[in-house]
């Protein structure tokens, strides 16, 4: 049952994508619905199974590793899959209004969307490094056309830049994988640790450096983030949401898998993790400062993504300390709550852009009367981004600070504090711009505001409320997520 569910998670959206390109409306509707609607149901089955039986492998076609390609499902993968289902699902509902399936724009949009969903699901489940390469490429080749879909100059330029860097990143990753295969004779993430321990150190360093470099580039980790803000800011709203909430996280997810599951816990590896955390700190501070300098709402949110990704790397140097379980809880919870909040912000920003015809901060004034619910979504999600209670972001930040304290890594504490103050500054800058009222005589501020379909508003609000609710329902999820990577990193 679970095996079928796992395969369904990958293949239903894939088949759906095939259906949407068939002629006729019926095929399009059928493709979208059959590709997306069953995902939560399948996930319930997978979640129950993982909660009951623990992590598990699925050998595709009955071929055992190392020859065969395996799927691996554990709580982390389940978490990511749920994020794809929920965030992707709500973003899809939002997209339904802008890209009606029967319209020409919809005909271009939905096959790409379904393929992207399928590719992300496949990535979170794959245990094979080369298979992961294919997934990464699929994600790149579906996400970028989605960015370019509006056809505007900004969008095409951002897409082009993203594409060139993404292809470079893929090649670096592929080169790393090639060297790794030569050094270890396996591509399976979970069979690699012993082989890596035995391999010549120089080869290991080169491989891991190449793979990590490729992933850092794809994950837009400072200082390799240059492509992200414009790409995310010029994409259509639901695409921005999914890019920021999910797509960049796929690279971070793989970094976790490689470094925490596959690399032997040596002193050198620990130093590498510290280096990654330093990049994360740089992201948090640099992204935060740049978010503060932007004049457009979507760019503020996009730079905020650059910053928030930093949190996810900051936990890495604690991998060998006693504080690791807490750090891991904080990292994964940040993964979740940032996803929800960031998607809510991008959808709300898309609504605002639609309604006002501009998303310049200076044009946002009196937003509380012109787009009250979008502003509400923006504000509530902003609270989570700032890490203030009550929100998922707050609980994540609490756990991260707690872990930094317990591990005695004071610099992490300082970075976390500085990062959250910067986040507060850029979120409140948006809110202040929205409450401003330069011309008190202006009679009817609502007059020049276009109406937004209620469904679109609802999607943004719902995501924001989920980010808020994450501030109250952490305990069961954290229990489910467990202590993270298997034993090797945690020393007594």
């Amino acid at each position: 049952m679970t095996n079928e569910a796992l395969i369904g998670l990958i293949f239903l959206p894939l088949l759906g994508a095939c259906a949407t390109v068939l002629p006729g409306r019926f095929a399009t509707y059928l493709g979208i619905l059959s590709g997306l609607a069953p995902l939560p149901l399948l996930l319930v089955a997978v979640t129950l199974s993982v909660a009951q039986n623990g992590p598990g492998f699925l050998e595709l076609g009955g071929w055992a590793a190392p020859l065969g390609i395996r799927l691996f499902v554990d709580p982390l993968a389940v978490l990511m899959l749920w994020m794809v289902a929920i965030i992707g699902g709500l973003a899809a509902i939002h997209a339904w209004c802008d890209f009606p399936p029967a319209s020409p724009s919809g005909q271009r949009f939905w096959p790409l969307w379904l393929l992207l969903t399928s590719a992300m699901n496949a990535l979170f489940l794959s245990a094979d490094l080369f298979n992961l390469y294919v997934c990464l490429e699929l994600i790149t080749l579906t996400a970028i056309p989605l960015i370019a879909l509006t056809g505007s100059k900004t969008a095409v330029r951002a897409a082009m830049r993203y594409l060139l860097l993404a292809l470079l990143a893929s090649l670096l990753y592929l080169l790393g994988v090639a060297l790794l295969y030569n050094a270890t004779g396996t591509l399976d993430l979970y069979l690699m640790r012993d082989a890596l321990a035995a391999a010549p150190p120089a080869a290991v360093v080169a491989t891991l450096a190449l793979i990590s470099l490729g992933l850092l580039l794809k994950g837009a980790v400072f200082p390799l983030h240059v492509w992200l803000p414009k790409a995310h800011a010029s994409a259509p709203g639901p695409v921005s949401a999914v890019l920021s909430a999910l797509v960049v996280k796929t690279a971070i997810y793989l970094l976790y898998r490689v470094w925490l599951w596959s690399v032997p816990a040596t002193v050198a590896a620990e130093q590498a993790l510290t280096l990654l955390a330093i990049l994360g700190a740089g992201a948090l501070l640099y992204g935060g400062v740049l978010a503060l300098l932007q004049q457009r709402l979507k760019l503020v949110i996009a730079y905020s993504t650059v910053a928030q990704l930093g949190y996810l790397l900051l936990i890495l140097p604690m991998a060998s300390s006693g504080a690791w379980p807490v750090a891991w809880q904080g990292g994964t919870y940040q993964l979740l709550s940032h996803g929800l909040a960031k998607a809510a912000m991008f959808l709300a920003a898309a609504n605002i852009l639609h309604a006002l015809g501009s998303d310049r901060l200076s044009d946002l004034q009196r937003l509380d009367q012109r787009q009250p619910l979008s502003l509400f979504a923006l504000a509530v999600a902003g609270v989570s981004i700032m890490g203030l209670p009550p929100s998922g972001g707050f609980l994540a930040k609490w756990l991260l600070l707690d872990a930094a304290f317990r591990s005695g890594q004071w610099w992490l504490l300082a970075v976390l504090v500085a990062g959250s103050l910067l986040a507060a500054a850029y979120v409140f800058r948006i809110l202040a711009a929205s409450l401003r009222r330069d011309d008190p005589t202006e009679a009817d501020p609502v007059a020049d505001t276009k109406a937004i379909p209620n469904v679109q508003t609802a999607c943004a609000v719902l995501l924001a409320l989920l980010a808020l609710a994450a501030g109250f329902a952490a305990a069961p999820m954290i229990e489910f997520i467990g202590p993270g990577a298997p034993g090797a990193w945690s020393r007594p």
Partner: protein
Amino acid sequence: MNPSALIYLLTAAIVFGIGLHGLLQSRQILRQLLCINLMGGGIFLLLITLGGGADGPPDPVPQAMVLTGIVIAVSATAFALALLLRWHELGDSTELDAVANADANTHDE
């Protein structure tokens, strides 16, 4: 490892290096695309060489990887060309202008 393998390895490294150099040096998108393909070629050559098996039959896994990789490279290139065409239509340019940053905050819809 036999001498011919060494030649292949060197060639792979050189091809990859030329590609990387060109990618970083060139402003023309088309050239950059070609360079990316060159780099890919270098990696494929490396994979095939490493999987060559000095004694005994060659390892099939790298072969499969290269086949898949070629398919991906072709489709990525095709998409990139289509995007480039669109970019050319929009702005009559085949470069991503260096002044792109100047209008980072503008909104052109």
